[in-house]
């Protein structure tokens, strides 16, 4: 278990400076999946990497107050819920399963709504991958809860 924070001012400063930029890049990768390489899986992994870096340099005690494993589990489940609902809600509104054209967002239509549906699904995938990878790290480190 990594209990204490890392005893080096250089490591702490660099890590605390790096983490916001990693998270910003992760958001860019998720949002930019329509236009370039990237998407939910890659962006979720980057988000998880930022949280894991925080756990490595802060130690588990402080890092779990900032971001607890239960929050990671909840975020993963919320991501799966977003994906599942974006499949089921169009069925309620008269389409097929995962048919984003029938999402109840009435101010966009047709192909624009499909692009928006892809974005919603990518955000769901990103949250699910993010929560899952943080959970796997926590369980491998041997955390109690």
């Amino acid at each position: 278990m990594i209990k204490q924070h890392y005893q080096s001012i250089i490591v702490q400063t660099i890590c605390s400076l790096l983490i916001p930029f990693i998270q910003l890049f992760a958001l860019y990768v998720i949002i930019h999946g329509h236009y370039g390489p990237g998407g939910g899986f890659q962006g979720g992994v980057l988000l998880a990497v930022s949280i894991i870096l925080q756990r490595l340099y802060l130690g588990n005690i402080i890092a779990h107050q900032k971001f607890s494993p239960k929050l990671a589990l909840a975020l993963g489940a919320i991501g799966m819920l977003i994906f599942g609902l974006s499949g089921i809600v169009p069925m309620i509104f008269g389409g097929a399963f995962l048919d984003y054209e029938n999402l109840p967002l009435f101010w966009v239509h047709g192909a624009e709504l499909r692009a928006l549906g892809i974005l919603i699904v990518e955000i769901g995938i990103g949250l699910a991958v993010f929560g899952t990878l943080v959970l796997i790290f926590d369980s491998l480190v041997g955390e109690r809860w």
Partner: protein
Amino acid sequence: MRWLNALIMLLFVALMLYATVGLPDHADPQAPANTHVSPTYIEDSVKDTHTPNIVTAVLADYRGYDTLGETIVIFTAGLACVLILMKRKER
């Protein structure tokens, strides 16, 4: 027995090599895999989804069901890790 196993493996290798003769060339535009649904994706994905990245359009829209399955697999793997490896608090 070892020689019999080796003979069976050699026959299998010969069978596989014989089967590769009938495969289409690498990156052949007339191959069956490239003439079935790929042209539809390439021509219609921007019109259907307003997404310039064909990979994203196929991943999240045309094959969304597959991606749903992948995400469920990842999430289930994480849950299994938690259930097997996480230690419970001692009372």
